């Protein structure tokens, strides 16, 4: 992605139009350019300016002759401005070789411009609870016994309860693609925030003696996602998220003598930086369902 940002925008922009007509249009007179700027609804709406509250706009007096061609500009298919977004999802952790982890997620955002939102998201990993078959070690991958047998190594593993984050979402990219005669609008967004993550070491090295409570860790996250509009209020989305926090794991050494029952010796002395990279897939519902374009006169 770095090359996207390293490409000089001004040099690129001249090549970025989508039709030859548009390229020709750029070479028109300054008076014509001024006319285009006044009527560029997409740019105004996408910039997040509150045209709804500004009310009707009086056209400026015409001082120069305008070009006779009129270019129709399609409206943005679905506005996000001043709408709530509800997003249930499922999360699959990608990079834990020892345990399979699945989360149920829910996110809520408020779009205070058309490209910027503030919201929260919640991921619940302990949804299976204490029922039979819900022991986290039952979700272990086949690499765990291989490591134990072949290298005589124990693997300290933590269970996760839930995570809760406050996030900003920014939409730098939007576009549309065609599937036969259907045109789908999509956008890509960047997301990031801070919150907390609840985790608990699973006693592996001395389970007869050790037991652990849930710990609350300060966490943060970054990610990027893709949203495809199925209707003006319903979308399908998938996102890549990296949730990160410093975590405490079980001590792989058992203290001799009375120290064995001392809970102060049960955890490793330092924290380990955990990066949970995951894919989340879900749908979003924009509320209110309907919205109105406010057009300048």
């Amino acid at each position, binding site marked *: *992605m770095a*090359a*996207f940002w390293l*490409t000089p*925008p001004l040099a*690129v*922009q001249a*090549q*970025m*139009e*989508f*039709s*030859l*007509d548009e390229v020709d249009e750029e070479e028109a007179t300054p008076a014509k350019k001024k006319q285009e700027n006044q009527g560029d609804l997409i*740019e105004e709406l*996408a*910039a997040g300016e509150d045209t709804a509250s500004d009310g009707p706009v009086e056209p400026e007096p015409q001082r120069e002759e305008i070009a006779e061609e009129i270019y129709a500009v399609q409206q943005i*298919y679905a506005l996000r401005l001043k709408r709530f977004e509800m997003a249930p999802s499922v999360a*699959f*952790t*990608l*990079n*834990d*070789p020892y345990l*399979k982890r699945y989360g149920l997620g829910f996110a809520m955002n408020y779009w205070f411009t058309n*490209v910027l939102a503030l919201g929260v998201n919640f991921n619940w990993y302990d949804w299976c609870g204490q029922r039979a078959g819900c022991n986290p070690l039952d979700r272990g*991958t086949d*690499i765990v016994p*291989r*490591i134990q*047998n*072949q*290298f*005589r*190594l124990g693997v300290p593993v933590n269970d996760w309860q839930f995570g809760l984050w406050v996030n900003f979402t920014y939409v*730098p*990219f*939007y*576009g*549309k*693609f*065609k*599937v*036969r*005669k*259907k*045109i*789908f*609008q*999509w956008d*890509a967004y960047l997301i990031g925030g801070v919150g907390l993550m609840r985790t608990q070491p699973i006693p592996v090295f001395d389970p007869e003696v050790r037991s652990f409570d849930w710990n609350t860790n300060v966490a943060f996250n970054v990610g990027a996602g893709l949203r495809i*509009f*199925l*209707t003006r209020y319903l979308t399908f989305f998938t996102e890549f998220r990296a949730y990160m926090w410093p975590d405490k794991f079980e001590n792989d050494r058992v203290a001799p003598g009375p120290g064995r029952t001392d809970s102060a010796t049960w955890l490793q002395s330092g924290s380990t930086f*955990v*990066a*949970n*990279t995951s*894919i989340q*897939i879900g749908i979003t519902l924009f509320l209110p369902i309907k919205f109105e374009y406010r057009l300048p006169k």
Partner: protein
Amino acid sequence: MMMLARQTLLRISLVAALALVLVMAEGLQSDNRVSAQDVHVTGPLAGAPSVMNQRLWREMRLHVEPFFAFTIADEYSRSLIVGGELRFHFLDWLGIGGWGGYSVATLDTNLTKEIRDKGVTTNANRLDLPSREGYPNQVGRLNWWSGVELHFVPFRGKLAMFQKIFVDADIDVFVGAAFVGVEERADVTGQPSPGNVTYCDQVGDGCLPSQDARAKRTAIAPSFGIAFNAFFKEFVGLAFRWRGIPFKYNTSGTDNNRDGQINSDDRLRQFNNMFSVGVIFTLPPKIKTTD
């Protein structure tokens, strides 16, 4: 924590493939029940093609794409790859191509480092781990890559970046066959018996020489993937590509079936996959457009 669980990736790939099939099946239906943007045009544009002056980025053009890639989901060793790809498109949505790359560097995963630092060798696992210090020498590595693939471009469109930069973009789905240069630990048998190994080839060697012995072969496997391409000029674009190549090899250099010997029976299925970033150069540089 930095490795990708291959089963999870496989599951996600299946979900993505299912979603792709559903989207395409929906698009192929004649019954227009999809409530995405359905453009009903009246007036002078009625009956006109959905896109006019469409730029044909691929039709009868050659794409040359040098790329940098790295493997993901590796258990013991990652590969950093430099390579190139050549594609020719008969149609704007269909083409054929070949690719190749060389692993210019390999990176041991945290698990390999943990074993190197903390692994314990006994007679019960001497065949699997002759010495912990030499463990990185016994893991399987992927040295070179190549393949031929058929490319489909079902989606194309345009996108705006920061409401200032506009580019044409498309999604390229491909499937084919790959040829991968695999380097694994050479065949060896633990003596005198499985589970009580004191030497491998010669009495007293402790299996240490076998830890560094290597065998090379070429693995043939299916390959498939998806790429997002953005075109900045008539002859230059950028490609972000994910490619999956599942095949079996002995990643850990260990006796995985516990039969007392290391050989081809110890190979485990791996969902090898990589992510690459490439720069697309197109020939001829002049682009054609539709009416």
